[in-house]
């Protein structure tokens, strides 16, 4: 098994783990963390192909940096949203936030 395959396998596994978190955890915070994990998995793919890919892919590395920055922004806004939702509904269960009407 080559390192590239390993990386891809880990990436896929992490992605699925994140996905499972998103799908089955009822808590909004964990859902958000799951999303973060999925992003990480994507980052790992970038890095893997940067390192073991056909070469010349400096962009892969740089992209990961941007991706991390954006993920941080996403986390901040997401958590703020969760807090806002909690203030409104007194709950952070995603299932409770099923109305568009405030």
């Amino acid at each position, binding site marked *: 098994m080559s390192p590239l395959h390993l990386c*891809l396998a880990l990436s896929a596994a992490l992605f699925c783990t994140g996905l499972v978190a998103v799908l089955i*955890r*009822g808590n909004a*915070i964990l859902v958000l963390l799951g999303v973060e994990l999925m992003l990480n998995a994507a980052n790992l793919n970038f890095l893997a192909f940067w*390192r073991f890919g056909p070469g010349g892919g400096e962009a892969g590395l740089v992209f990961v940096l941007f991706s991390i920055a954006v993920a941080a922004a996403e986390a901040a*806004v997401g*958590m703020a949203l969760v807090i806002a939702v909690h*203030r409104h509904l007194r*709950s952070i269960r995603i299932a409770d936030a099923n109305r568009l009407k405030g």
Partner: protein
Amino acid sequence: MTTLLAVLALICLAPAVAAVLVRNLIHSALLFVLAWLGLAAFYLALGAEFVAFAQALVYVGGVSMVALFAVLLTRPGRTDLLPPPSAARAVGGLAAVSLVASMLASSLFWSRLPSMEPTAPIPLRRLGELLAGPYLVAVLLVGLILTVALIGGLLLAAPRRPAEGADA
């Protein structure tokens, strides 16, 4: 190399899986942190030093803090311990697992990826030149996004507790 990576992958994957399954929210979040740290180590092993430290700094220092704050501020009590409806959970799990299976299968067994020699790591200075050169606009845009996110987070969460969304 592969061995090291495999060990690190396990270090990374195990907490992640545990985090998804553990019922205690705080534990779950802390396990996520562990997973991210493992991932940072994995990056380090891949030769992406800068990215690894950035990952640690941002996820361990930033995202995890935000998440923990959110957990504490929302005080879910025991509610999170209730599982979602079991049928839905089963369906979701099944779907996810099938997806995992298909992806793993495709990526590991049937892909015709050439096995490449690892490229040389990029010197840090080169990375700086890249960021300040061709990617300058992107850097500025990311800065803008972060600023907007900061302000947006503050606005969303601020009315009662001004400090809570303040990092990122």
